[in-house]
């Protein structure tokens, strides 16, 4: 597992989690070029996501959140009427 880890701020690729583990195929190693940058995504890996486009309504969501020392529920709909900067990132304690 550690051999798969790419220095930077990526986490190790997830191994297949489906039980029984013995039958599960080994998770495909994320393709990474020799320079440490992710290479082109394999076609089978992009099938599950669809990118929203500019000019379209932002997809609505509700999720648990940490805000000002409290655990709260946050919904995008609460921010209707305000400008929102929505930022995704790979993970807490990553370096960049």
């Amino acid at each position, binding site marked *: 597992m550690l051999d798969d880890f790419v220095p*930077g*701020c*990526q*986490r*190790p*690729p*997830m191994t297949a989690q489906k039980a029984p583990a013995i039958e599960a195929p080994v*998770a*495909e190693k*994320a393709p990474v070029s020799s320079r*440490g*940058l*992710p290479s082109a995504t394999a076609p089978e*890996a992009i099938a*599950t*996501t*669809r*990118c*929203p*486009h*500019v*000019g*379209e*309504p*932002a*997809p609505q*969501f509700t*999720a*648990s*959140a*940490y*805000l*000002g*020392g409290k*655990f*709260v529920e*946050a919904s*995008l709909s609460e*921010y*209707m*009427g*305000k*400008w*929102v*900067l*929505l*930022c*995704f*990132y*790979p*993970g*807490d*304690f*990553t370096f*960049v």
Partner: protein
Amino acid sequence: MGVEVLSVSVDSVFAHKMWDDHELSKMVTAGAIPYAMLSDQDGRIGRMYGVFDERSGTNARGRFIIDPDGTIQAIEVLTPAVGRNIHETIRQIRAFQKVREAGGAQVMPAGWKPGKTTLTPGPELVGNVWRVWKVSEAFED
């Protein structure tokens, strides 16, 4: 600027608290992160926005500017190893806010910042941008 920030990662809210307590609080002048740090542990939100990487189980550095009507005005997505440019994000938000204030009657040319030339689209501007706007403005700070 009147902008609400929401951050999203696949970490739990407990990890968010630990990160804020032990690292981020030492990095931000406010002493703690002032915005909601959302937990997207199953990648549901990331998938909706097309930034979830199924191989690593994490979200890429996706950045979405959403206007008060809930419309996405700008998208930027980076792979994990390179950080964002916050000045560029602020510049874009200011530009979109200016467009909105003007009701779409003004548009912001390349490199626009507050104080720089805006353009008023119309028949008389066609073929005449060069008279009112210089390319050098796109490169100047």
